[in-house]
């Protein structure tokens, strides 16, 4: 006897009445906007690797410090380079660094936190002491100190900026694993014959990702602002290269004479991208909190 037609009609009725509990939750508007804007920046980042209206480092493409016009939508800077092209090109630098930093911190923090949360012992105690030490320093100051010491290659900047939010990821992963390792599904995973490492990485870690991803969203927002800030202070990647923060620094002295465009547009880019990431992080946090109810 086939039960398929009966159930199919039943399901159709549930869907029609809006009672279909299997349906995925619709995205809130903030999440849609956030993802849309980040997506836009991602597209720009890719496109700008191949093409910009003018070569970003090319001086004297127009008048020096010319205000925005049709030829130069964002104006030109002190050496005559097109700000639009520079901001465009800076996108792949800044977005690239942000993605690298968040991915690195998320991955390292998850693995580290999961391992110490699961196995505990002296490694756990040592980890907590190390994290407390890192977190005791004011974030930006720590970044500045380490970069001044290490140098300004892109890799150094990525490593240092990833170090600062790392303790949060580690703590989150550790807390989630410690809570869930005594739950029955972990016991059932052992029952079927999984190795402890298998239980940890195949069962416990996937269950712990929600707060970690929410943190990643908010963290990305901070990273964008911080990388821009470091660039502004001259501590980011090589000064002179297209990077929003250093572009702002370049236009800083001209602001008093009413030349607002070299600072405004890179600043706007940082603001928009940071805000978009924050929206995503907020939406993920809300989803995480609602799930816990």
């Amino acid at each position: 006897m086939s039960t398929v037609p009966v159930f199919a009609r039943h399901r159709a009725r549930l869907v029609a009445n809006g009672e279909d509990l299997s349906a995925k939750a619709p995205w809130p508007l903030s999440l849609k906007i956030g993802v849309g804007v980040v997506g836009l920046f991602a597209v720009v980042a890719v496109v700008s690797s191949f093409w910009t209206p003018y070569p970003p480092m090319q001086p004297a493409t127009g008048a020096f410090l010319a205000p925005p016009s049709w030829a130069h939508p964002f104006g030109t800077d002190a050496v005559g380079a097109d700000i639009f092209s520079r901001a465009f090109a800076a996108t792949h630098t800044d977005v690239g660094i942000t993605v690298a930093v968040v991915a690195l911190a998320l991955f390292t923090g998850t693995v580290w936190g999961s391992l110490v949360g699961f196995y505990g012992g002296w490694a756990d105690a040592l980890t907590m002491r190390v994290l407390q030490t890192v977190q005791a320093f004011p974030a930006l100051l720590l970044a500045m100190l380490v970069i001044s010491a290490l140098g300004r290659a892109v890799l150094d900047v990525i490593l240092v900026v990833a170090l600062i939010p790392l303790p949060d990821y580690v703590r989150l992963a550790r807390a989630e694993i410690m809570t869930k390792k005594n739950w029955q599904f972990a016991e059932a995973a052992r029952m079927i014959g999984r190795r402890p490492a298998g239980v940890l990485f195949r069962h416990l870690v996937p269950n712990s990702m929600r707060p970690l991803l929410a943190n990643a969203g908010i963290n990305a927002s901070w990273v964008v602002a911080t990388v821009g800030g470091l660039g502004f202070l001259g501590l980011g990647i090589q000064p002179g290269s297209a990077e929003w923060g250093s572009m702002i620094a370049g236009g800083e002295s001209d602001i008093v004479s009413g030349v607002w465009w070299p600072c405004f547009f890179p600043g706007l880019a940082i603001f928009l991208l940071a805000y978009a990431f924050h929206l995503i992080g907020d939406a993920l946090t809300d989803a995480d909190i609602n799930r816990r109810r």
Partner: protein
Amino acid sequence: MTAPEPSDLILDVKGYSGGFVSPAGRMKPVLDNVTFAAERGKLTALVGETGSGKTAMALSVLGLLPTSFRRTAGAIIYDGTDLLQQDERGLRRFRGAQISMVFQDARGALNPVFTVGKQIMDVCRLHRGVSKKEAARMTERMLDRVRVPEARRRMQQYPHEFSGGMAQRAQLAMALICQPSLLLLDEPTTGLDVTIQADILDIIVDLNKNEGMSTLLITHDLGVVAETCDQVIVMQDGKVQETGTCEQVMNKPVSVYARQLIADSRLEAVPR
């Protein structure tokens, strides 16, 4: 009645004792000289009230108790092999493939972030190394076997979309997929509606009678025991109070505790 041959025994527990050690180092005994045997192909019930140690006994068989549990004496022989001599790696070969367990809280025992189908496929891929497609087929067949309607659609669903009875069936499927020789069920029907209870028990009895699956059913419901089981072991406070066939224990209980238990259960035809 002649005693069963050792080869007839799928699980032979001899004088097993143990307890939990608190962080301060004091030992709280949980099991005391537990001795019983489960015969191959039979449905054996492990009966007792809450706190009698029956769950601890079952978890001991698979070595799933937390590290604070210490064995103080005894042996657990499964099919001729002493499980307590096995290290963790040795035990893993038994778990899921030879001895499987079904837990009381079915939805709790299923991983919330994976679909039910994936979890069941996981088990057979872990032990048998079959391809994904083959595992999916086996899973669907097993879900049909445990009477989950619309098995293919249900495989794509998450545990929270399953009702209690359905989740218990899914767990049963997960336990059976690698065709174990011994099935342990820890209060599989507690907390379910009576009709669902009957359904699940039906499946368990069917497995035992028609496929000869050796089963150890842990329960505190004597009605279930009276209806379904061949052998009964009664536990109280970590000790075995009585063992025997179902007829013996239910109709002519020897120990005071068993007598009291049966009387309190208000089963028919038991003199007070």
